[in-house]
C-alpha cells in the first residue's frame, strides 16, 4: 500500500526532550537503579532503549544493563501469514530474576507485541517487576495493556500509521503520521 505523510508530529529536538523525560521518569519510579534493566524490542525499541540507557548514564552515572528481544516466535498471528516472518536476534546477557525490567518499544498500538514480549520474558525467568515504556502510544488497544511511561500520547485513526524514524536506522530523528494515498 502506498502512503503519504499526513503530519509531522515530532522533530529531533522534541524527541530528545521526550526521551530525557522518559529516562527521568524511569529513574524516579525505580529507586534501586542497580536492580533496573532495560529490554528493547526489535528493531526500533532496541535503539530507543540504547538512548535511554545513555541518558541514565549521563544523569546518574550508572550503567544499567540492556537486553534485546525479538518477539517473532511468540506472535499470536504466525499461522495467519502466508510466509513466516524473519526471526531476529534475542540477546539478554543478564539474569532477569528479581530485577525491575523496563520493556521498551517505539509504538504501542494493539498491545499484541507487548503480550508476546511478556510471554517471551517469562520463559527466561521471573522478574521482580515488569514495566512498559512506549515512545508513542497511539491508542486502539485490543488487550488490557497500558504503558507505565510514554513519550507521547498520539490519538490516531486505525488506517493511519505512526512512523518513528531514528538516526541509527533512518538517518534522521522524527515522528510522522502516514496515511494511505488517495484519502
Amino acid at each position, binding site marked *: 500500500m502506498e502512503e503519504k505523510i499526513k503530519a509531522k508530529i515530532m522533530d529531533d529536538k522534541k524527541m530528545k526532550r521526550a526521551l530525557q523525560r522518559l529516562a527521568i521518569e524511569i529513574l524516579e519510579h525505580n529507586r534501586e537503579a542497580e536492580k533496573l534493566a532495560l529490554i528493547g524490542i526489535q*528493531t526500533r525499541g532496541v535503539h530507543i532503549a540504547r538512548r535511554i540507557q545513555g541518558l541514565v548514564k549521563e544523569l546518574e552515572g550508572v550503567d544499567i544493563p540492556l537486553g534485546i528481544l*525479538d518477539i*517473532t*516466535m*511468540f506472535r499470536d498471528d*504466525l*499461522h495467519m501469514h502466508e*510466509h*513466516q*516472518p*524473519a*526471526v*531476529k*536476534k*534475542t*540477546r539478554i546477557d543478564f539474569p532477569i530474576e528479581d530485577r525491575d525490567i523496563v520493556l521498551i518499544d517505539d509504538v504501542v498500538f494493539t498491545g499484541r507485541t507487548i503480550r508476546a514480549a511478556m*510471554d*517471551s520474558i517469562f*520463559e*527466561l*525467568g521471573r522478574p521482580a517487576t515488569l514495566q512498559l515504556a512506549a515512545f508513542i502510544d497511539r491508542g486502539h488497544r485490543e488487550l488490557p495493556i497500558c504503558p507505565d511511561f510514554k513519550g507521547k500520547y498520539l490519538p490516531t485513526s486505525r488506517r493511519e500509521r505512526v512512523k518513528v524514524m531514528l538516526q541509527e*536506522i533512518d538517518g534522521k530523528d522524527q515522528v510522522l503520521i502516514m496515511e494511505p494515498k488517495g484519502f
Partner: protein
Amino acid sequence: MKERTFRQDHLLGIEHLSVDDIETILETAEAFIEVSSRDVKKVPALKGKTVVNLFFENSTRTRSSFEIAAKRLSADLINFNSSVSSLKKGETLKDTVLTLEAMNPHIIVIRHSASGSPHYLTTFARSSIVNAGDGFHEHPTQALLDALTIQQRLKTLRGLKIAIVGDILHSRVARSNIILHQKLGNEIALIGPPSLVPVEFEKLGATVCYDMRGGVKNADVVMMLRVQAERGASNYFPSIREYRNRFAISRELFALASKRAILMHPGPINRDVEIETSMADSEQSVILQQVTNGIAVRMAVLYLLKGEVHETLN
C-alpha cells in the same frame, strides 16, 4: 535492515535455493542459537504442528538433530522407523507416505537411499518435504549447518577456498556443499583418488586434484568426508592404509592451509582413517560445533517451512 521472506514450500536441495534463501536460513538459524542456550530451551513457534521423521536409512545424528529441533519449537514429532514398519510387509513408499499424510502432518523429513525420493513425494504429498539425505544426491541441511559454522568462525562466507577431501562420488554432503559454495562464488577444490573424484565434477565449477598438498594449500576450509565402507567405498582404492597415507589430514598437511583455516567433518569420523586423532581434537577442528549448529539450522528450516497444506503438482 533488510526484511527477508522465505518463499520455498519444501527444502529438497541447495540446488533450488537462491543466495537470498540461503542467507535467510542462516540468519534465522543464528537467531535460534540463542534459544538453545536458555535454561528453558523451548519457544512456541510451531505449537500445534506435527513433524514426521521418515528415515529409511540408519541415522542417529541427523534424526535426533531434527527431533530436538522440532521439540524446541514446540512441534509434535513422530519418529517413523522403517525397519519395524509396514514397508517390511510390502507397502510402497507412496502408500506409506499417503497413510502418514492421512494423519495430517505439516512437515515430513525424509531420508532415503534413492536419489530424488523427496522430489517424488512432492508430486503427491500435501506436507512440506525436507530432504535429510537422498542417495548420492543432496543433504541440504548439512551444507547449511556447515555454512553457518564457517560464517561463525571465519566471519564471512565469501572469497573463500574450500577443500573437500575424500569420497566425493558417493557423498551427498559434498554435492550440497559444492552447489552452495558455487552459488556463493567460493573457490572449490575436490581432492581424493581418481576413482572417487571423477573429473566430471569440474563441470560443477570445482577444481579436481589428486594430491593433498596442492589441494589443501591456502584453503580456508578443509572438509573431510568419511570413507563410506557401507557404500562399498573401499572397492575404489587398494587398501585403507594406502588411502590413509595419501588422503588423511595430518598436522603437517593442515599447516599448508591458510592461517585461519578450519577443519570440518560431517561425522561420524573414522579416526586415523581420514583424519588423524590429534587433528580431530585440535583447536582448528569445528566438528562438534557443526553438530550444535545442526540443531539451529534445522530449527530455522522447520520454522521457515511452516508446512501449510499446498496444492500438489498433479
